[in-house]
């Protein structure tokens, strides 16, 4: 362990966080003195800790994989802790547990909230909430596209093929270039959405907040009723579109925007096609249920189905309709989509469509092997074969995912109000969705849960966000041994 370098990296992360707090601070300066004080104090504390860590002497040796895991995991936890300060100090939340939950929910782009009256909060606090999601999304893009593939976690190296440019040998110089371009795409899409929402008659403040939350697939809104509070079909369609965009691998966006706007950048990608198919098919089925079963008007059925499916599959978690009032099949489709999640290399959480796709292909080959015992068949994606160790990584990832899910449900059920809430809240947090089922549905929030549950869910959010193994590897004694 190169503690010096680890501290230094974490310090730099915190200093960046401190700098970004400047924006809500300035905003507060024009609106409310109480919040200004809270932000000022938070910035001071964050700066002090960050500086202290950043000043620690650099280790002699270069950082290796193990140090990378430590930096990534603790980076998220430290950010969440410091990001919670404005909520706690300003008194917007009841205590540090709630503040940490809210902040972790932001940085992991989950969107689960313990705020009961969002509209009663100061605008600067709301802005900070949205900003944590946007910053978290930024971190995730770089993490999943530029860093994790080289660590090969849970079959992550398959994404390497999709990454434009860099190869494993040229890791350091190219990672920065890749990150720069991806951030540029991320920012461009966010700006595009801000303008689109503004044109749809949203206020600047609301459109900025919603855009920050959409591109990060976060789901923090400025309204108690989430996006439904605007009562505007146009706004809902715009957000639907950008949610779907946010659930696409950003490497594909990069190819589209920087390699001549060719639609084939998207449509030649197997995962994209699968993701799109999944989204459209689910939306169609649910719309049919709403139209025929519940007797909603056709446009509203389509809109609600499309919005909700996009919101769930991309793990954003905005709400326009209370899906808990729908028939059982649509609810189950949504629950499965919660587990599946968006594309790899996007800001979406969940298991990721590419993993599901590969597991299906793996199953197909295994069945073929029953008929042809001597069969040798490689699993292919985009006409290139996937290494067996990648497939093994994905299978183990699925198992770890299920185990963590079940373990968390067990702990949460110690004092959960009912079974559905226990299951729904854990899925919602582990897959970084936001709203779950039961008493944490789209119209409710997480405020009533016990402190233990909130801590477990906070950790679930971080684990789900960091592809589980990044966090779990820290529990291996070998990680800490010389």
């Amino acid at each position, binding site marked *: 362990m190169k503690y010096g370098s680890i501290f230094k990296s974490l310090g730099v992360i915190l200093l960046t966080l401190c700098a970004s707090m400047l924006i809500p601070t300035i905003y507060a300066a024009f609106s409310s003195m109480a919040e200004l004080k809270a932000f000022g104090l938070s910035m001071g504390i964050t700066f002090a800790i960050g500086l202290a860590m950043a000043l620690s002497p650099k280790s002699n040796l270069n950082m290796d994989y193990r140090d990378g895991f430590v930096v990534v995991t603790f980076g998220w936890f430290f950010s969440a802790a410091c990001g919670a300060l404005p909520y706690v100090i300003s008194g917007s939340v009841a205590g540090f547990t709630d503040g940490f939950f809210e902040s972790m929910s932001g940085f992991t782009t989950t969107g689960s909230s313990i705020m009961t009256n969002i509209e009663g909060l100061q605008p600067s606090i709301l802005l900070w909430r949205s900003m944590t999601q946007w910053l978290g999304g930024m971190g995730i893009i770089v993490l999943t596209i530029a860093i994790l593939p080289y660590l090969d976690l849970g079959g992550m190296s398959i994404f390497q093929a999709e990454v434009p440019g860099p190869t494993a040998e040229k890791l350091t110089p190219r990672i920065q270039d890749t990150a720069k371009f991806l951030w540029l795409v991320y920012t461009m899409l966010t700006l595009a959405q801000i303008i689109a929402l503004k044109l749809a008659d949203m206020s600047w403040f609301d459109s900025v907040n919603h855009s920050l939350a959409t591109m990060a697939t976060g789901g923090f809104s400025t309204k108690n009723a989430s996006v439904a509070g605007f009562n505007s079909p146009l706004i809902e369609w715009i957000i639907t579109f950008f949610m779907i965009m946010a659930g696409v691998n950003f490497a594909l966006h990069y190819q589209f925007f920087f390699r001549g706007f060719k639609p084939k950048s998207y449509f030649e990608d197997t995962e994209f096609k699968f993701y799109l198919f999944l989204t459209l098919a689910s939306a169609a089925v649910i719309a049919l249920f709403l139209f025929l079963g519940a007797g909603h008007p056709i446009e509203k059925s389509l809109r609600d189905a499309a919005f909700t499916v996009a919101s769930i599959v991309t793990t954003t978690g905005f709400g326009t309709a209370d899906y808990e009032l729908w028939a059982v099949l649509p609810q189950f489709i949504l629950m499965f989509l919660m587990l599946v999640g968006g594309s790899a290399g996007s800001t979406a959480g969940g298991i990721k469509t590419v993993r599901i796709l590969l597991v299906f292909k793996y199953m197909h080959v295994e069945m073929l092997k029953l008929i*042809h015992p001597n069969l040798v068949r490689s699993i292919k994606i985009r006409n290139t074969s996937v290494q067996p160790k990648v497939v093994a990584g994905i299978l183990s990832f699925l198992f770890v995912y299920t185990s963590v899910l079940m373990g968390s449900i067990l702990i949460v059920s110690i004092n959960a109000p009912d079974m559905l809430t226990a299951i729904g809240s854990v899925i919602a947090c582990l897959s970084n969705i936001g709203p779950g089922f039961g008493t944490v549905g789209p119209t409710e929030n997480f405020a009533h849960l016990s402190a233990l549950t909130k801590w477990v869910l906070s950790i679930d959010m971080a684990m789900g966000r960091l592809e589980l193994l990044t966090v779990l590897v820290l529990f291996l004694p070998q990680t800490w041994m010389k």
Partner: protein
Amino acid sequence: LKVVIAGAGEVGFNLIENLSRENNKILAIDTDEQVLQRLSEVNNVATVRHNITDTHLFSESFLKDVDLFFAITNSDETNLIASQMAKEAGVKKTICRAMKISVPVEKTDFSLEALGVDHIINPIEVVANELYRLIEAPNSVHSHDFFKGKITLIGFHIKEHARIIGKKIGYLNRELSSRKFHIVTFQREGRTILPGPDDVVKKNDIINFICPSDGIRELRRELGYNRTKKRRVFINGSGRVGFALARKLEDSDVKLKIICRKKQNCFHSSDELSKGIVLHMDGTDTKGLVAEGINGADYFLSVTNDDHVNMVSCMLAGEAGVKYTISLVKQPEYVSMLANHPDVYLAISPRSVTARYLSRYIHGDQVTSYSSIPGSQLEVLEIKINKGSSCLNVSMKQLKLPEGVRIILIKRKENWLFPEEGDVLKPEDQLIVILHKMDRGEVLRFFQQPADEIKEQEQ
């Protein structure tokens, strides 16, 4: 022609056998004294024991005025270097055998000019192509491509259900010409003849057709070889030949199973191929093969590196009921041995295939492609007409071709036509001509004579 053959291995030996019949001056170079000895005993060949990449070799006087230089040792690198050195020493044309350079067979004009290589041939591709042909056109006896793969000369065995039996050649050629098929020769009771318009097609004739390469399927239908069922093909061995063959078959209408004993080759094939089932098993494992449905297979090709495995697995497959079992064998003795075996449909020696392929280069610049009709003294040449040749602008009727020589097809820019009496040859035309082997010199002179005269005048 003055020909130098560097590398007197099996390919060289076969090539020399083909060449020495035709009055060429041949010089074989090899480092193995014994091989050269054997060679000079059998054929009328001059031999030199030398390292072919030795710089001294090319300063020797006997390499002056060489027309063709074949670099056909077993080493790609040696061949490439030797070709380049030969070119620098003033050899007119170099032909290089290279296994690792992937060259589609159809592209006979592919060259690496900068390296001094005029033609490159990849024996793996050549063999794979030969096998591919056998699968794509079953019941065909042989075939050869002209005009870079646009036109094919293909021989078919006429079975009883063919629709053309009992019809006159003249009538058939008129009827088929709209579809660009043309009957060139037919072989009956071991004798090959150029048919007249009144000859009648009989059962068991072998008829050679000229047709567009993409029309072979249609021609087969015309002959009654109608098959709508998918053919099932087993390939034993996924080494270089097996893999190249499987690659070619990807676009064909076949059900492919590839058997290989080496796991690594299995993985490679399954990674690279989008079609076909790759099985990791022994090609002689009869039980396993039966489980994979060998009984219903149409083709079984054994293309491993081991002659014995190929022979045995083909025999086993033949016994299991596969009709077309094709075995690759390197030992020339085995080829004749398998020729009469009831369970082996065909034995192919990759080296003689390569040698046959190489012999197309020995006809100088004017002949761009060449094929002999098996079992006869006839050959089919693809010829360029020299500019200002005396045969230009003369109608077919007045053209004084030597006896027994026929122009089958004229290629004019991108079109082709079957010549009729009134047609006239134009500059830039290319011809497919059928003739007796003995007449070749005369025919070539006929099409290029005036050009030669011009040259003489200049001198």
